[in-house]
């Protein structure tokens, strides 16, 4: 038993979960798949006094596909979304990125929203949520709010989540016609955290975006005009702007180089996908 002691509340419905989170305040944490939280508990980087298990709340296990949005509940596992038959058609970027999220054995338990809540700067799912302009729906007792992904992620493993509050779902804008999407990543080994991960969207008016994870403390987006004559200069400027740092896995210089080269390749892949 490595984690510090905590009370465990196995919530049967939303009101039980929200009440337990309210009572626990800053010392309470939500657990769903636990694939990010349990390592933190085992290493005692986190020692909450109350954990609220939300996996048995029926409405959180739903994938809701609307005409223009896909809403994914907080208990939906990554492997469940991976097997959703409409994924490639409705969310091509997430379809391309999901196999890069850890390993099968972790995706079988880990949730989409859990990865968003953990907010690791190298994680693929926060990157996709920002790249697509998605939102996060947060709930606490008597209050529900929806936050844009770009505002939700505030720094390395730091989010806009308030005490007593939990993510109930994330919402990805569905594929738009004549828009291209592409995802590329470089990691030491497949399944490891990204050294650099890139997500590109290419819109029908010729404009494009490149969102990069693994470099700055949150995924950052570069907006590109239809005229891309000076693309290399823009990518270079963006690579410096991200203020890469050296760490165990790669130097800052290598990361900048990946932003330039992998960024360019990802954009090139997204452009012809516009059909």
């Amino acid at each position, binding site marked *: 038993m490595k984690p510090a002691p905590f009370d*465990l509340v196995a919530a049967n419905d939303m009101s039980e979960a929200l009440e337990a989170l309210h009572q626990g305040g800053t010392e309470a944490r939500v657990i769903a798949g*636990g694939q990010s939280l349990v390592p933190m*508990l085992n*290493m005692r980087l986190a020692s909450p006094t109350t954990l609220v298990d939300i996996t048995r709340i029926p409405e959180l296990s739903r994938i809701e596909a609307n005409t223009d949005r896909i809403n994914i509940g907080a208990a939906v596992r990554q492997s469940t979304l991976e097997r959703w038959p409409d994924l490639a058609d409705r969310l091509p970027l997430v379809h391309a990125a999901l196999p890069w999220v850890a390993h099968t054995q972790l995706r079988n*338990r880990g949730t989409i929203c859990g990865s968003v809540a953990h907010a690791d700067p190298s994680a693929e799912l926060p990157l996709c949520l920002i790249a697509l302009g998605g939102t996060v729906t947060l709930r606490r007792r008597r209050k529900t709010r929806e936050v844009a992904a770009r505002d939700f992620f505030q720094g390395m493993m730091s989010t806009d989540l308030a005490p007593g509050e939990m993510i109930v779902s994330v919402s990805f804008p569905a594929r738009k016609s004549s828009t291209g999407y592409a995802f590329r990543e470089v990691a030491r080994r497949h399944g490891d955290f990204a050294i650099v991960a890139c997500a590109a969207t290419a819109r029908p008016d010729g404009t494009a975006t490149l969102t990069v994870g693994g470099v700055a403390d949150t995924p950052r987006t570069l907006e590109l005009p239809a005229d891309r004559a000076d693309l290399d200069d823009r990518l270079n400027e963006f690579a410096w702007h991200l203020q890469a740092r050296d760490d165990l896995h790669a130097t800052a210089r290598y990361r900048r180089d990946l932003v330039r080269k992998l960024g360019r390749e990802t954009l090139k892949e997204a452009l012809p996908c516009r059909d």
Partner: protein
Amino acid sequence: MPRLTKDETHPVRFTLNGRPVSVRAYPRALLTDALRHEIGATGTHVGCEHGVCGACTVQVDGEPARACLMLARQAEGCEIRTVEGLNNKDALSPLQEAFREHFALQCGFCTAGILMSLDALFSPQPDAEEDAIREALSGHLCRCTGYAPIVQAALAARNRIKGGPIDA
């Protein structure tokens, strides 16, 4: 609302290799703790305890998962399968037999987890390609073999599983 208090043990019920079991566990106990310390099923090994090495991999409702990243309580009502559930009476399973023949283990610490991932791969997909085998193995660390004998064993086992049981 069911609140399991931190200073007491609480009952957890699940099936282990087809047999119902009931253990008492603290809320913070991991599934590995329940399996090894409470039940004495020490076939499941504990390596890194943060999900990286794969030694503790078991099957939860048929899917491979890290037992070190699950609270024991989260196994409530689940079907858990461990390496102890692989063999048929006293005979090794085709997968285990192939591991023995191909020297796919040396110290054996990682083996239980690898067997559970490969078994989960072959159950729905008895003709899995080598790519899929390597993908399943990517979630496991082996510091002895260099992986080549493990891949060979998995390919041999796949061919036997497809062709029906051996050593019948």
